[in-house]
């Protein structure tokens, strides 16, 4: 099934196909390597009979849509209050050290993007790290090398 067909299918359960714009953007992002280049926005717009401007306005509003390239893997560390209180910053710094990048950057081999995120809803198992949309909780600084090894091995 083409991306357009997949998006159209995702729109079927809604009384108004406009409602499928987020679902369409998610599908497009998966197909375009984890981010949304201009062509992807246009493709979503065409599938749903929306303007590319509207689709871009929606995409730029939500944190999980990326409008710039990301690495093959995305590592996200929650630094909101509950995680902060139990050492999230030390986890952020461990990733920065191991990857040789600062938050917001992608590692040299182009394969891991490091981000901080707001509350992921794992406050009781803090600090929370989300690796490629999968929660790892709790994560201590000493767990960081193993997490990165797993990514490189897999």
């Amino acid at each position, binding site marked *: 099934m083409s991306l357009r067909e997949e998006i159209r299918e995702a729109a079927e*359960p*809604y*009384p*108004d196909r*406009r*409602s*499928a*714009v*987020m*679902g369409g*953007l*998610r599908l497009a992002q998966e197909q375009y390597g984890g981010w949304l280049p201009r062509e992807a926005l246009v493709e979503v717009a065409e599938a*749903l009979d*929306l303007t590319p401007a509207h689709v871009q*306005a*929606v995409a*730029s*509003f*939500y*944190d*999980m*849509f990326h409008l710039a390239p990301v690495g093959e893997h995305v590592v996200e560390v929650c*630094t*909101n*209050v*509950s995680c*902060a*209180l*139990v050492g*999230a*910053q030390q986890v*952020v710094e461990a990733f920065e050290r191991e990857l040789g990048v600062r*938050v*917001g950057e992608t590692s040299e081999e182009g394969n891991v993007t490091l*981000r*901080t*995120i*707001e*509350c*992921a*809803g*794992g*406050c*009781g*198992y*803090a600090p929370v790290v*989300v690796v490629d*949309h*999968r*929660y790892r909780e709790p994560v201590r600084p000493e767990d960081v090398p193993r997490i990165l090894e797993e990514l490189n091995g897999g």
Partner: protein
Amino acid sequence: MAEAQSIVLAGADERDLTRIGEYQAIGGYAALAKARGMEREAVVEEISTATLRGRGGAGFPMGRKLSLVQPPEVVGKATYVVANADESEPGAFKDREIIRRVPHRFLEGCLIAAHAIGSRHVFVYIRGEYAAEYEVLKRAADEVRDAGLLDGVTLVIHRGAGAYICGEESALLESLEGERGQPRPRPPFPPVSGLYGSPTLINNVQTLTTVPIILERGGSWYASLGPQASPGTVVYSISGNVERPGNYELPLGTTLRELIYDVGGGIPGGRKLKAIIPGGSSVPVFTPDQIDTPADFDSIQSAGSFLGSAAIIVVDERACMVQLALRVEKFYKHESCGKCTPCREGTRWMVSLLEKIESGRADHSDLDLLRAVCDRMLGKSLCALGDFAVYPVASYVDKYRDEFEAHIDQGGCPYGGESSIEGIAAPVDKHTHSPVAELPA
């Protein structure tokens, strides 16, 4: 010691209630059959009698909400049930556990609510980050359909994509309609004009998950549990500096002391309690002398804060309150949708002033200005985010003013780099979703 009482999560320790067969083996979906055999007014009456107050934060009585939604034959168009599973309040992680462990009880509650208002359409808006929970819910929804229990109702699971504001009901509706998640002016309220301009019932996951047992055992039974004005149980989310953080379902009105010291096991290392955030990061803080406050809607409010989503964050003596204020405010700056000027610009001013105080460059007039910005933001935005951005910080300044003044008098943080949250990074340091102009120097 508070007595654990399972209603929402009942049976989940013993069985895999994510499977429909297991759920039906303990009587699951019997309440739905019972409700469908009743007149819908009678269903509304049971829920009203139960005095079930919304567990998403506002505590609005569900029965009253139900009675505000006109049926399709009166309004002449489809009406909707929307389940708010966009849990994003910092400190809250209960809906995630409910969906993971008792998705069928939640879906049963949604279907009973649909019957109660005569609606044929249920939408579940689940936050985008909850990918594993989405899978559990999706499988449960497929099982419900295959078991023939939908009875003509369409059930759509809609995934969010990372925006705190979409937990706010009118922003959620905008998002569900394919727009940026920006709140709507009210009135009209969703029961009158909600999704696609139609009457819409919006309730939190936990509220809906409580509905089946109310139908099963009766509204008066439920009303007899816990405090009279806010009966029943709630899943408290306990996090921060406690030995045993986690979700605990207990009767409403359990005291903060019981929650922190008995249930949560106290503070690690025998350290001293410094602050209690009783309802998620958006509410005014409590000082240790308020620890005997019962954690129910009215008691917490009488004591000057909000129960919110019953997310209790424990802060020990190592945390600098200015740094905590800064971290909390950076969250609201990041999540402000940018629609209302007081919220969009006020959060930026607050972050800027707090950074100045934390770094020791502020004088006392900056602290007064910070407090004045708070006062001027309150009640000035379309939704509560503009207030949530103020309540915590204003309360930290008012209750820990000595600590804010010490930063000014000493020209820096009195913790000297030893605060437990020293240097904490925040997403807004890298980007924001709102249009950004330079602050005046």
